[in-house]
């Protein structure tokens, strides 16, 4: 139970918190989406990293191998990546429409424009 043994988890936690921080702290709508993507990426790692066993092979039964890696997390995360890409694409499309409607992609400049309306 040393810090080095679990370094993949530290990477995951760092990415998750960094991503969430960007979403909260940045007013630029594109940067928010970047943060969101980083946050989602940390979850991909959370699934994929424990699936790999050191010295493990693909799970094809053979008398030469005793240790197998779990392939299921990879398949799950393939789906999650597709979802993430779709979210990012839709988010960016919305930002394009927002830019057309407001002439800005900064939250501080968009929100006041409707306050008097």
């Amino acid at each position: 139970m040393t810090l080095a043994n679990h370094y993949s988890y530290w990477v995951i936690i760092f990415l998750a918190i960094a991503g969430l921080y960007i979403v909260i702290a940045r007013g630029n709508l594109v940067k928010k989406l970047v943060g969101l993507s980083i946050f989602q990426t940390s979850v991909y790692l959370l699934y994929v990293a424990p699936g790999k066993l050191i010295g493990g092979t693909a799970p094809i039964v053979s008398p030469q191998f005793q240790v197998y890696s779990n392939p299921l997390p990879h398949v799950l995360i393939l789906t999650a990546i597709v979802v993430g890409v779709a979210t990012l694409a839709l988010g960016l499309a919305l930002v394009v429409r927002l830019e057309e409607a407001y002439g800005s992609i900064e939250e501080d400049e968009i929100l006041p424009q409707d306050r008097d309306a």
Partner: protein
Amino acid sequence: MITSHLPILQVVVPLMAAPLMVVLRSGAAAWTLAVAASWTALAIAAGLFLEVAGGNVVSYWIGSWPPPWGIEYRIDIVNAFLALLVSFIAAVVIVYCRESVRAEVPRERHYLFYAMYALCLSGLLGIAVTGDAFNLFVFLEISSLSSYVLIALGRDRRALMAAYQYLILGTIGATFYVIGVGLLYLLTGTLNLADMAARLPAVSDHRSVLAALAFITVGISLKLALFPLHLWLPNAYAYAPSAVTAFLAATATKVSVYVLLRFYFTVFSGSGIFDDRPLAPIWITLSLAAMFIASAIAIFQNNVKRLFAYSSVAQIGYITLGVSFGSVYGLTAGIVHLFNHAVTKGALFMLLGGIALRLGTVRFDAIGGIGRAMPFTSFGIVLAGLSLIGVPATVGFVSKWYLVLAALERGDAWLAFAVVGSSLLAVVYVWRFVEVAYFREPTTEVARLREAPLSMLVPAWLMVLACFYFGLDTGVTLGGAGAAAESLLRGPR
């Protein structure tokens, strides 16, 4: 036999209809297809409900892979009740969509609107029928992504910002859910909800279980707009096209409540994780905050759609309050209020859509005297408002009655008073509409308005009448909710 494939058809029919609409590229054809798909979904949901009403559980193995290896669709009375609710609302709203969408969405985007509607429906139904935690996430995202698009199609440019904010918060919520499921998968090695429930007790002393519970709770609470995680909801409902507001307000948050119920009462209940942890007081506090604060904010809104959106946040408080009691009465109240609130809010937002169609706005300062110009629409809103307050003979009364019974059963008389007290706030905001609609002189612009078209009035009034029918004859709703509550409390089988 085709009937043995009903669980998968429930999802596949609307899912396949969506790309077909995009290929056809015609608004009228897409609408016809959407009607066919949602009515078929309703028929399937009714069939499934009848099949499991006796206490059976339908287990469908996708690709014939046996669970827990393959994805299992597992339908008991809880899922069936929810699928029936979602497809019923979808079937009614789609008829209403025709005129409303014609007025509010540019013509060249009509087929895309209906494609998104069908996708959203299939996502929501998928959440309802699936028995697999990761499959549930995928359906959650299908329904969420399509609802962001639907909201962004609103006429007002503020709809874009509302959709963007919902996208950010919704994605955070869904990602939290996946983190929770990932932790559970690491502990149990399974994604099948029933299998997970069976394996969790063996590892329940692990702190990761607690982390998973926290992540799933927060993630799903974001999606169901539990106070104070409701910030995306008022703008999204206020600026989305009227038909979308009616559909989402009646279904999307309800489905998220179901996910929460499923995890709390099926997956986690056997693991002993709730022992000695003060979860109920937290839920009760947040529910009460929703009931009072959101209702109070609703009173001061100038946009009627926003007013009822805040009221939705408050009504979700009633649902979670019932659930947090964890008793048969409490759960029954929560589940029956899922249905009752869906019908009531569906009716309200559909009728408001009629005003938006004729007048172009639903602001209080513009709709003065609308009661004379659009008598059927306004009277419908008042009747549905009565149900929101919880006047006897309406569905709202049924759920609040059970909520009060559940509170008294716990010996918490003050909670019963809180339920009644927050209903008084509902009286205030519904009265605001009555006052503006009936006691103000109509402006020349309002006086010229015609009544909403029949194709919108009939579905909306069907919902209004449903508020009263199910308020008097509670056999199906209370029976279904009671059986669902008992099935949930029995835990996993």
